[in-house]
């Protein structure tokens, strides 16, 4: 079943005093099936982050449409937006974005508190999730007491605790060392195996090679896409790398 549809998405930024216009997204179209693990790759300035912000309903497109489970994001009123985001979307950021005023437990519970769940229900959801992500012992600790990898796992737990229909990750390995990155990617793969749809924006070929499909964005357009098929991580890594080389050499559109 198609979970997310992106049709002819356009985004043009106008500089503060008018005049200068910058096109971030020219024409982006793709769709995401339920249970997919997709990586979006592209160089700095290719429009990756803009795309993610629009998918996350943090930004509005200049043109085109985003449909999540058949519902257009632009139809959702401002008042409902926060609740919609809370219930349907999970976020993992490069900088973790944990709140240092909260313990690990409270950071994870934050979205549930915002939607007004009872402490009992929170507890019920937290326990198995924390166990699955290996966070059980860390729950009473504060963000400044734990490592970067642990912080990112906390952020993943926070994103998953609402059972979102899609998990959006923005360079989730960007601030991690290679060991923590591997752990996080394995975690993503695990989570994906249980049916969780993941959409990840990344620079890292290693990170992308763990996904099931990779979209390449260049100059505000989907330039190419690769399916993993039957490939192992190694082989897929190689193919992604080749495509990137081709891209930076200025190859033609083949998508």
């Amino acid at each position, binding site marked *: 079943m198609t979970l997310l549809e992106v049709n002819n998405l356009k985004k043009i930024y106008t500089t503060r005093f008018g005049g200068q216009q910058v096109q971030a997204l020219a024409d982006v179209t793709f769709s995401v099936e339920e249970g997919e693990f997709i990586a979006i790759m592209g160089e700095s300035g290719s429009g990756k982050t803009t795309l993610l912000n629009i998918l996350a309903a943090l930004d509005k497109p200049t043109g085109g449409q985003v449909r999540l489970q058949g519902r257009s994001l632009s139809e959702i009123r401002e008042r409902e937006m926060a609740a919609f985001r809370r219930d349907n979307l999970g976020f993992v950021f490069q900088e973790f974005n944990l709140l240092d005023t909260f313990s690990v437990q409270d950071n994870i519970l934050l979205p549930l508190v915002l939607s007004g769940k009872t402490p009992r229900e929170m507890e019920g959801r937290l326990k198995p999730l924390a166990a699955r992500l290996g966070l059980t012992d860390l729950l009473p600790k*504060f963000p400044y007491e734990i490592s970067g990898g642990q912080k990112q796992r906390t952020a993943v737990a926070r994103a998953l605790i609402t059972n979102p229909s899609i998990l959006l990750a923005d360079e989730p390995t960007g601030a991690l060392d290679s060991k923590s990155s591997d752990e996080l990617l394995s975690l993503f793969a695990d989570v994906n195996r249980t049916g969780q749809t993941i959409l990840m924006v990344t620079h890292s070929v290693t990170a992308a090679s763990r996904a099931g499909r990779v979209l390449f964005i260049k100059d505000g357009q989907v330039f190419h896409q690769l399916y993993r098929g039957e490939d192992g991580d190694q082989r897929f890594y190689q193919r992604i790398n080749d495509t990137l080389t081709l891209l930076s050499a200025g190859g033609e559109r083949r998508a």
Partner: protein
Amino acid sequence: MRKGLFPKLAVQNIVLNRRFYFPYLLTIIGTAAGFYDIAAIAYDEGMGQLRGAEYVAMFASIGVTIVAAFAAIFLFYTNSFLMKRRSKELGLYNILGMGKGHIALILLWESLYTALIGIVGGLSAGVLLYKLVTLSLHRLLRLEVPFGFEISPRAMAATVLLFGGILLLTLLYNLRRITVVNPIALLHGESAGEREPRTRWLLAILGVLTLGGGYGLALVTQTSEEAMLVYFLAVILVIIGTYCLFTSVSIAVLKLLRRNKKFYYQTRHFIGVSGMLYRMKQNAVGLANICILSTMVLVMLSGSLSLYLGMEDVTDRQAPADLILSVSYQPEEQAGPDTEALFRRLQEEVASQGQAVTEMEGNFYFPLTGDGRDGVYSLRSSGSMRYSSLTLFTLLTAQDYAALTGRPVPELGENEALLYGIPDTALTFTDGERPVFSLEVRETLTDFPTISGGGIGRVGRPAMVVVKDYDTLLRLWGEVFSAVGSASLPVYELRADLTGTADEKYDVWTYLSQEADFTGTGSWSSLRVSSHEDIYSDNFGIAGGFLFLGVYLGLLFLMAAVLIIYYKQISEGYEDRQRFQIMEKVGLEQREIRRSINSQVLTVFFLPLIVAAVHVAFDFRLMLQLLQIFSVTDVAPTALCSLGTLLVFAAIYAAVFALTARVYYHIVSR
């Protein structure tokens, strides 16, 4: 490096950091102006020669010391805030290749500019405000308003020296800071690792004990002397208690709240409680500062205002007429003062000064000071007599009472009396052990004509006792004298109102008390002339001085409190900005953000105000007892003053809060 770069950089820094620098400069200007004005008054020698202004120099020099100490502490506080905010910028300079010497040069230039703007601005503001300050001072002291425009070079020199010195010290402190700390630490200075505050039980217990001790002292004192003795101690205890309370008890309470899951896991409380908990440690001291400054402002204002407003009443009680002749005489000599002759002589002497007597009346009385309560009073004056247990009895005759009130002469027996001022039903006077004489109270009077009696400048409850006749009065005097061995002489008091202005009346009084001749007016042992004008200007000299100092320091402390609030709001704004951005991404609604900011900031900011109000409530009893020393005994006006001051202060506080909260929203929501 190119010459002129550092001064230019310094100017640029001040402009770029104007959000922090501007209030800092205002602080310097404000305190410098405040210091200059109070110093100019203290150094003004002409002031001491004004009638009623004798005490001003004393009050002003107390003020000079307090303002100087305050300026030093406060400027250090704001400076350290400023430097903490700027550590990142300075660390960046260092990393970009500036030596510490170069940074020191920039700081030196910044300090020079700051000092120049602050001191010159402060002096100008001070000189301009001086006229306003002296005008209000003269009004408070009920003096004629002087003309002219004055500048006090001595006060200027003192201001330059003091503020130059303070700013030099802050510069040295800042320089030390950059030489000791490494650039990476400077770079991260702002976000230096925040740890969740620990509950410090020892501190919490200490806080409860000291605060309880301070409050307890305020509750157990019974007399003005005790109040005077313990006041300072109580203030110190409450200050210590406040700091401990804010730093520990608040954290303990918040942790308890957090443990309550039902309460804690609700959007508003969730964000609020954790935010406050997180903020409590860094801001506990700031909040305690605000709380103590607010308390000081409230206590000073309400106390001095009560005294000032009560003074009119006190003066009228002490001097119910323009002139009061108190003629005391030996009762053994049967003759006594010749009242007719006294009336005549007074009229002649007043006429010789070009004024006339408009109204005149007189009565005999006999003052007694009794120590005790509930009908039993010891006449023995022991050194340990306590003001507030003293009752100042004025005994007078039924005939005089009738003449003063225009009522018929009351029928009284030998041992019967009418009583006014205290609720006893019988009076027994003792020599400390055995009774000397007793009076049955026939009637408790609800009003009484104002006579000066023996009350001028003395502290105690006034009580009027009307006895049968003149012979009874003298007999009672004799009994007191033989039992105690001494007694104040009986007095004939003559009260007269005059024509003329206040100054003319004062001149008549000066003449009467120094030159007039009252021989041939019967036999008496001493004659004292008091003047309403004299007592009035004396009373208002003191009360006005207190009020002036109270308002002056009150405004200064208010300015400090406002500034601390402002700095807190903006520094918190920068800290909270990122937190709220993250929460928005996770799905917090804009409305909820505003609501939770409101409830959190509101709690944090009104906590000091509430605690200050509680402090003031406990202080109220002590203040009443202290006011008794100045004969101000009415509770209601003092209560109104306290309440009024609190309300006005709360309104100002709320306005400041609203204004600075806007700055906060602006920072957070950008």
